[in-house]
C-alpha cells in the first residue's frame, strides 16, 4: 500500500520571502516572455502592465515553473498566454476559485490572478470577495478601465454614474462600485492601487504585491483607448498628475503636489486638502499613512478626483494566516493526533461483524 504522497512529483520550491532570495534562481525578463504574439489593441494600457509584470518577475528569484498566472474572461484574460510560466485562461469571473483550489493543493506555488473590473466585480464578485476573506495567498491584479472592452463597450461596475455606453445610451443608472472599499470590506490583507502609464510606480507596487503572503489585491487604473479613451486623463496626465494624485508611503505624512506643498489633514473625522504653510499648517499636522490602520485604509478607498487627489500605492498591508497555512495546520494537527490514515482501519471503522 502506498502512503499518501504530495500531489506533484516535483520538489517543493523554497518559501517565497526576501530572506530566501539568495538561494533562489537568477532569471531575466526574457525568460518570462512566451512565444505567443501579443494581441491587444495598439495603444492599450495592458501592454504596459504586461511589460512591468515580465520585468518584475526575475526580482522574486522564484523558479518560473513555480509561478502560475490564472485569468478569467475579458481583455485582461489574455495575459497568461504572454507569460512564459504556467498559465490558465479560465472562465468568466472564476479565476479566484481555480486559484483557491490550486493554492490549497499546492501551497508551494506563487499564484497570480489577472482580472478586470467586469470579471472581478460583476460576474465574479462573489469569488473575489470570498478569496479575500479567506486570505487565500493569491495576487489579484485587477485591470480597471471602467468599461467592457472585449464585448465592445458596455458599462461596467466601475463606470461612472450616467456614463453613456452602447448598452446605456441614456446613461447608466447604476452607482459605480469602489474596488478598494470592497477589498477592505472583504478583509483582503493587502490592498493597493497603481496606474498603467506610471510604469515605475506600477512596477514598485507589483513588487510589493509579489512579496505579500496572503490575499493581495491591486487595482490598476488602465486606459482603454478604443472604448473609454482618456478614462483617467484628468489626473494621470504627466502635466497634472503630481497635483492630482497622492502617492502613499507608509509612515510618511500624506503630502502631494508638484511643489510638495499640499497634504491631507483630518478635520474631525473628515479628510481635507490643506496647503502647507497656509494658516500656519505644518507637515506635522498632516495625516501619516499607516498600512495597518483599517480606518485610514477606508478613508483612502473613498476619496477620489476631483474632490481629492487620487491615492495610489499600498493602502493596506497586514499579515494574517493564509488559507493554505490554516488548511495545512489542520492537516498537521489531524496527523499528529491520529497518525497517517490506514485505509483498512478506515473501512472497518464503526461497527463490523463477521459472517463465517
Amino acid at each position, binding site marked *: 500500500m502506498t502512503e499518501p504522497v504530495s500531489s*506533484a512529483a516535483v520538489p517543493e520550491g523554497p518559501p517565497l520571502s526576501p530572506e530566501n532570495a539568495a538561494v533562489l534562481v537568477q532569471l531575466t525578463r526574457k525568460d518570462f516572455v512566451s512565444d505567443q504574439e501579443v494581441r491587444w489593441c495598439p495603444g492599450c494600457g495592458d501592454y504596459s502592465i504586461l511589460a512591468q509584470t515580465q520585468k518584475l518577475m526575475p526580482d522574486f528569484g522564484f523558479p518560473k515553473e513555480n509561478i502560475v498566472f490564472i485569468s478569467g474572461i475579458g481583455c485582461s484574460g489574455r495575459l497568461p498566454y504572454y507569460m512564459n510560466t504556467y498559465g490558465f485562461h479560465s472562465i468568466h469571473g472564476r479565476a479566484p476559485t481555480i486559484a483557491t483550489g490550486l493554492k490549497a493543493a499546492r501551497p508551494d506555488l506563487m499564484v497570480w490572478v489577472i482580472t478586470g473590473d467586469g470579471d472581478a466585480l460583476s460576474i465574479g464578485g462573489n469569488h473575489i470577495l470570498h478569496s479575500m476573506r479567506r486570505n487565500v495567498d493569491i495576487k489579484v491584479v485587477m485591470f480597471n478601465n471602467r468599461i467592457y472592452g472585449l464585448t465592445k463597450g458596455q458599462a461596467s461596475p466601475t463606470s461612472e454614474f450616467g456614463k453613456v455606453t452602447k448598452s446605456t445610451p441614456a446613461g447608466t443608472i447604476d452607482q459605480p462600485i469602489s474596488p478598494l472599499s470592497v477589498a477592505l470590506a472583504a478583509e483582503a490583507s493587502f490592498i493597493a492601487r497603481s496606474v498603467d502609464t506610471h510604469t515605475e510606480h506600477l512596477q514598485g507596487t507589483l513588487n510589493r504585491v509579489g512579496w505579500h503572503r496572503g490575499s493581495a489585491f491591486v487595482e490598476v487604473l488602465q486606459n482603454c483607448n478604443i472604448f473609454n479613451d482618456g478614462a483617467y486623463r484628468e489626473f494621470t496626465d504627466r502635466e497634472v498628475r503630481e497635483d492630482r494624485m497622492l502617492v502613499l508611503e507608509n509612515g510618511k505624512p500624506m503630502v502631494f503636489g508638484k511643489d510638495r506643498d499640499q497634504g491631507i489633514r483630518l478635520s474631525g473625522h473628515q479628510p481635507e486638502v490643506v496647503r502647507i504653510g497656509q494658516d500656519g499648517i505644518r507637515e506635522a499636522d498632516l495625516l501619516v499613512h499607516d498600512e495597518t490602520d483599517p480606518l485610514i485604509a477606508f478613508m483612502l478607498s473613498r476619496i477620489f478626483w476631483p474632490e481629492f487627489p487620487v491615492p495610489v500605492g499600498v493602502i493596506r498591508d497586514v499579515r494574517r494566516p493564509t488559507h493554505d497555512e490554516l488548511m495545512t495546520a489542520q492537516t498537521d494537527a489531524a496527523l499528529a493526533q491520529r497518525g497517517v490514515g490506514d485505509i483498512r482501519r478506515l473501512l472497518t471503522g*464503526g461497527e463490523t461483524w463477521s459472517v463465517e
Partner: protein
Amino acid sequence: MTTTTKRPVEVLELDRVTIRFAGDSGDGMQLTGTQFTRTAAVFGNDISTLPDFPAEIRAPAGSLPGVSGFQLSFSSSDIHTPGDQPDVLVAMNPAALKSNLGDLPPGGALIVNEDAFTPANLTKVGYTANPLLDGSLSSWNLFAIPIGVLNARALEGLGLTSKQVDLTKNFFALGLMFWLYERSMEPTLKWIDDKFGKRPVIAESNKRALKAGYAFGETTEMFHTTYRVPAAHLPAGTYRNITGNEATALGLVVAGQKAGRDLFYGSYPITPASEILHQLSTYKNYGVKTFQAEDEIAAIGSAIGASYGGALGMTGTSGPGIALKSEAMNLAVMVELPLIVIDVQRAGPSTGMPTKTEQADLLQVLYGRNGDSPIVVVAPATPSECFDVAFEAVRLALKYMTPVVYLSDAFLATGAEPWRLPDVDSLPDISVANRTEPEGFYPYSRDPVTLARPWAVPGTPGLEHRIGGLEKADVLGNVSYDPDNHHLMQTLRAAKVAGIANDIPDLEVFGPEQGDLLILGWGSTYGSIRSAVERLQADGRAVAHAHLRHLNPFPRNTGAVLAGYRRVLVPELNLGQLLLLVRARYLVDAVGYDRVRGKPFRIAEIVAEAERLLAEH
C-alpha cells in the same frame, strides 16, 4: 395492569419483516430507525432501509408536512429493497398515522402512541373523530399504547423537564420493537453511553426509556406473539452497515490512496449530498483536503484548480448545483483535466423536492452544456456499490484525463445495507504518472491508446505552458480558430470518451440471454427491478434483468444484449431518459415505465408492468 394471568407469548419465525417508524420530524424517527437497523445488521440479517424525511428541519409540530419516516426491511434471506409495504407501522402522532396508514396493508400491525391523539393534534390534521376510538382502524391490528405517559413514569426522579422527557419517547418505542422482534438492547445501550457519556442524566434517561419500552412488551398482555427473523446466509466476510453517501466517501478516499494522489473535495452544502462533504472533512489524515466553497461554481472551480495542481479534484452536489456547475464542467472538458463531479440526484425540476429521490439528471449531465461536450457518466446501483463505482470514477478520470460524472441519488445516499468489506490489497493500482520530460512535450499531444493528454503540473521545470477554455490547436495547445482544427479537436474529445467502452466490463445479464422480456435499468432502481425479475422468473417467465453502471459510454455489448429479447422494458424514476438514449442509439423499440413520486419503485408495480407487456403480442 396485572400480569398474574399472563398468557405465554408465542414465538413466530418469519423470513422477512418490514417496519416503518413515523413521527414528527422532532421525534427522532431517523435515529430510531437507524438504531434498529444497526441492531438487525449486527445480528446478521440482510437489511435495506428507506429514510423519508421532510425538507423542513422542524415543520410545525404535529403537522402533516412535519412527518418523518424511516422504513427498514430485515430478512433471513438476500433482499434488494426496503420493502413495498410495511408489516408494522409505528405512528407517534395523528399526522404520522394519517400520512402513512395508506401504505399499511389490512391486517398489518399498527402501534400508536395514543397520548398524542389529543383533540388539538387531531384537529390539526383534519380528523373530526379520534380514529383510535371510532372503529375506523378495525382492518388493522391496532395497539394503542400511552407511550408518553408510560415513558414519563419510567423517567421520574431524574429531574428532567417535560420537554427532555418527551424527547426520549422514541427510545421507548424502540425498546418495545426490540422486545417484539427478539433483538438485544446492548448495541443501543452502548451507543447511548458513547453518545451521552459526558451527560450522565441524559444517558440514563435514554436507557430507562429503552428498557421501559422493552419491559412493557414483556409485561403487558397486549402482545401474544413475538417474532424471530433468523440471521441471513450472507457470503463469508467482515461486514458493516453502510449508506450510499458513506460508501461514496470511502470509495473516493481508497481510490485516492490507490492512485497515490492527494484528494481535494470542493463543495457547497446541498441536500442530499452534504454528508459526503461532512465525512470527507474528517479524513484529513488520509491526504484529503476539503473546502466549503462560497457557491457551487467556486466548488467546482476549486476542484479544477486542485486537479491542475496535480491533486485529484472532486466536487459534489445535486441537480440544481449541476446546473450552476455546467460551465465549469465544460472548462474541464476543454482543458482535459481529471475531475470527479458527484450528483446525488433529487426530485426536480428547480428546487423540486430536495429530500426525495429521482433519477432525472441523466440527460442534464450528458447534454446540459454548450457545444458538443462529451463527459463520462457512471452510476452505482446500491448503497454499498457506491464504493466500487466511486473507485471506478476515479480510475477513469485519471487514466483518460477527463471529468467523470457520478450519478447517485437520494435513495442510495441515505439508504443503508450490509456491506462486505473489500480486501484493499486486491484493489488495483490506479496511479498515473505526471509528465516530467521536457523533450518532446506538447500540452495537447495524446496517448495513442487512451487519447489522454499529458498531466503536466505546475512546478515541473521545462513544461511551462498555458491552457484554457478557448479552442486549442491539436498537439501544440495554442489558441486556435482554425476550422479544420476545431472539427478535429471535437472528434478527438468525443473519441476519447467513446473509447472508454473498451476499458469497462460488459453489461451483465441476470437470467436467460434470450427471452420474452429484458428489464433494463440504471442507478438505484436495481433492488426493485431485481426483486421483480426474481419473482417473474420464479413464475417461469423468460425475463432477464440488465443494469447499467456505465451510462457514457455504454458497455460495448449493450446493443447485442438488447437484441436478445422480444420486448425491452426500461423502468426509470424519470419520464424516460435512458429510454430515449437506448432507442436513439440502438434503434430498439424499448418501452418505458416511469414513476416520479419521489420514492423508489415498488416491486409489485414493476412485476405488474412486466406482466402487462408479456401479455401483449
